[in-house]
């Protein structure tokens, strides 16, 4: 177990310097360079062609849709789109790489020099500089068999599934990020979350981190602070943390690395330039392979492919079709929905903005949509340890809200209905029907219950008739109890007052 320094102390001594590489799997129909289906579940080595296997003689052909997606993403990141970009071969031997080179883009990426505005939980706005976004192909998937850890060390043999080989990727590389300071972990999370929102907004990827559609490699180094007036210390040695498969992990991994590196540096040690493997279960990173800047991939222009030369018309067409940027959209929604800063902050932090948007689009009021998602649904998700979005759909929430608004359900009943929907019992209406949870709106049944309650409490009835309407509470309570809660209390109150005068003395 690595020694960790207290986080606040680490920040006193060092400045965290960040950089991110985010890989996004594009949801095209076919792969980056072949006509195999872009789908890597299922039976291993079935969604493959000679190209994906790197069979002798096979040649790659660029997927035009992947290029359009990459351009859209580049534009959404505020990048310039290269009039001419080129694919290059990145040469290294590894059995998940069918050709023993990856077709990527090196010094001529399709998009470069952009920035992304990120909003931190404390309300701070941060502009993350984007160096480039480039296209490349994914590798196959290795399964190491026979070892205790499932990793290559100690494995007896390994299996390769090339279904994922050739899946189109865009890699977004940030410039070096300075100035995050103590917000570094939150910035990391907010950045990846923003990229996810952009990608989802563009509809170019499923962007599910837990499925590897969106993968983040987090680079971090610490720079020792120098007294004011002295020149800044040189940049520290960085580590690159991989296998960070959730937004929460991104934040935790950065915080962990800051504390780990600070402890080493403060003890007079040095940081090894290496990849670090994030372990979700222990919340720690462990050393991966050494990584030096001198890694020689012998990049050279891919001679099997022509340069990518998108027409200015295509670029403008894609620019015109861009959805609203998440940051701008957030500001607009906050105004439209009339939320307070705190309300909107809560919603943003819950990561359920899109769900509320969709719920509002399905007919619910912004306030009730927010209330349900950040309240009961988020609580249930938290208790079950799952993502709130996996529990219910925005449409179901909107239907639930509609039932409440129509008076069919009270809030208390609605919570029971939600529980049924989450349990898979059907739509809110189906749960209401099956569980018999609807508010009794049949005045006849209510009147009978009210009359009975009034007659059994003549003293209360008398008080009501004397104008002491607050005495009605006791009758209302009795009626609600008789109706097993399935009545609208407001309506009961109206009827109690009405019957008190209507009943014969």
């Amino acid at each position, binding site marked *: 177990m690595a020694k960790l320094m207290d986080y606040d102390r680490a920040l006193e001594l060092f400045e965290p310097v960040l950089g991110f590489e985010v890989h996004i799997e594009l949801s095209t129909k076919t792969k980056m360079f072949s006509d195999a289906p872009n789908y890597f579940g299922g039976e291993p080595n079935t969604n493959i062609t000679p190209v994906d296997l790197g069979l*002798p*003689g096979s040649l790659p052909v660029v997927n035009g849709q992947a290029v359009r997606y990459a351009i859209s993403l580049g534009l959404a990141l505020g990048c310039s789109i290269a009039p001419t970009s080129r694919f290059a071969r990145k040469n290294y031997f590894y059995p998940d790489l069918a050709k023993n080179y990856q077709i990527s883009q090196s010094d001529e990426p399709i998009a470069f020099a952009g920035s992304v505005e990120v909003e931190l939980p404390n309300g701070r706005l941060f502009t993350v500089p984007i160096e480039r976004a480039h296209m490349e192909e994914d590798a196959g998937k290795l399964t190491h068999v026979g070892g205790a850890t499932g990793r290559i060390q100690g494995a007896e043999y390994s299996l390769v599934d090339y279904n994922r080989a050739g899946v189109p990727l865009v890699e977004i590389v940030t410039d070096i990020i300075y100035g995050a300071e103590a917000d570094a972990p939150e910035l990391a999370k907010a950045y990846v979350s923003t990229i996810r929102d952009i990608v989802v907004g563009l509809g170019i990827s499923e962007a599910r981190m837990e499925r590897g559609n969106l993968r983040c490699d987090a680079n971090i180094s610490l720079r020792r602070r120098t007294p004011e007036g002295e020149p800044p210390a040189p940049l520290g040695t960085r580590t690159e943390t991989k296998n960070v498969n959730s937004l929460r992990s991104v934040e935790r991994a950065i915080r962990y690395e800051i504390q780990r590196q600070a402890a080493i540096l403060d003890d007079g040690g040095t940081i090894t330039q290496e990849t670090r493997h994030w372990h979700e279960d222990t919340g720690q990173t462990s050393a991966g392979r050494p990584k030096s800047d001198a890694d020689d991939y012998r990049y050279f222009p891919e001679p099997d492919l022509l340069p990518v030369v998108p027409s200015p018309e295509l670029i403008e067409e894609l620019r015109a079709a861009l959805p609203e940027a998440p940051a701008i959209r957030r500001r607009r929604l906050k105004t439209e929905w009339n939320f307070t800063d705190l309300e909107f902050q809560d919603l943003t932090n819950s990561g359920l903005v899109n769900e509320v948007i969709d719920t509002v689009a399905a007919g619910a009021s912004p306030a009730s949509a927010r209330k349900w998602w950040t309240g009961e649904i988020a609580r249930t998700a938290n208790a079950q340890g799952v993502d709130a979005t996996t529990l219910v759909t925005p449409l179901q929430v909107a239907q639930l809200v509609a039932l409440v608004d129509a008076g069919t359900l009270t809030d208390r009943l609605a919570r029971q209905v939600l529980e049924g929907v989450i349990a898979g019992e059907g739509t809110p209406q189906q749960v209401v029907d099956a569980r018999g949870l609807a508010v009794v709106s049949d005045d006849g049944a209510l009147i009978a219950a009210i009359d009975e309650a009034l007659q059994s409490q003549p003293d209360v009835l008398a008080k009501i008739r004397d104008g002491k309407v607050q005495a009605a509470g006791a009758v209302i309570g009795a009626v609600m109890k008789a109706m097993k809660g399935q009545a609208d209390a407001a309506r009961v109150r109206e009827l109690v007052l009405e019957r008190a005068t209507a009943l014969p003395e």
Partner: protein
Amino acid sequence: MTSDLTRLTADALAAKLASKEVSSVEATQAHLDRIAAVEGAVHAFLHVASDSALAEAADIDRRRAAGEQLHPLAGVPIAIKDVIVTKGMPTTSGSKILEGWVPPYDATVMTKLRAAGLVSLGKTNMDEFAMGSSTEHSAYGPTHNPWDLERIPGGSGGGSAAAVAAFEAPFALGSDTGGSIRQPAHVTGTVGLKPTYGGVSRYGAIALASSLDQIGPVSRTVLDSALLHDVIGGHDPRDSTSLTDVWPSFAEAVRNADVAGLRIGVIKELQGDGFQPGVMERFREALALLEGAGAIITEVELPSVEHAIAAYYLIMPAEASSNLAKFDSVRFGLRVNPKGGGTVEDVMSATREQGFGAETKRRIILGTYALSAGYYDAYYGSAQKVRTLVQRDFAAAFANADVLVSPTAPTTAFKLGEKTGDPLSMYLNDIATIPANLAGIPGISVPAGLAAEDGLPVGIQFLAPAREDARLYGVAAALEALLEQKWGHTLLSQAPDLSFSEMNATDEGAV
């Protein structure tokens, strides 16, 4: 009777097939018989597909009998260079690392041949991964030149050229990265054309150097090459570097051959020093004939050509080092497990150590070095600049000439074993053919006669601007007609009778 069928050109055989004078089974069997008779001496083939060839021929005969409309070349046999992947036929590219590999898919050119109904006789020998000028780097032993069995048939496509020269096939497919179609044509008295880069799909051609490789035709006559080119050419969506041009009929260009008024530029740098006198004699004679037929002979300069070989021997190995990385035992081909097991890297390493020949390893190391950090700019980067200069030289030369001309290679066929210990002198044999690959322009080698000093075939090379392959067919066909008119026969009719020399060779233990 059937042995005569092997002496026919593809065009003449096609006519007999169309008129049903001869069946495809008869024609195919005649070639298989010829292969059986001479292969012991020539060794042009790595795989002879007798059964599938006869089955394909029978299918064509059946379809013809049923009155189906067939391609004019349907039923004509053809030999395929082993660099081309063929479904159902083993494909090794001359290497042990692919021994026994039967591809699950066809190269685009194979798909086109099958669609046209050509009958595949088998796969021809070549230098391993097309690296060589003599077939001596084949992992399966060299091919022998039908003109003199102790001499090289050229390379890398010596198998295809020798098969055609030895009447084992009327024509064949070759591939040309630095002269592998044209130089074998030169030393075997055959015709070979390297198309414009992008003119023929490379999909399914096992890559040596992707930016230089082109598949092309090998034959005994210019018309046969044109007919074959018409079948295999054209855009292929599976090859991004394939041109989308609509190509003219090359056979038509042969039939309309006329050099009157054609400006022919003699490349100043590709003659003289290092060129054999007999080669130069035939070259000058051919120019005189063309001039007599109305061509205008001028001289052009290609100053950068002197650096072309140096640039080529950086670009080609650089691309090859990457292209050959896939041969790692994981998915196909040879697998060598080191003693006592080992990591996947150990298996890859042992497989490549055992599976690749010396020349292949030499070029992988050269190319890896040329692309390495710190050396890239000096080697690969500089070579690409030279390539640009060569292209500019050609552009300038073509401003003053319609086609350029040079001997195809400096010498006639050298002896087997003569240059295997001296890679540099082997590389220099490609001095006249390499520039066309660097520039992406088409080039053809057509027989010019025999060198007086050794009686061996000499070829003449014509080059045209990119996309002007038809121009080459025109000038080559015109020269072919002028020469045959002068000689009174074809050049290959003068080649030794191999069924006889096979016997001699066997008696003498030379093979």
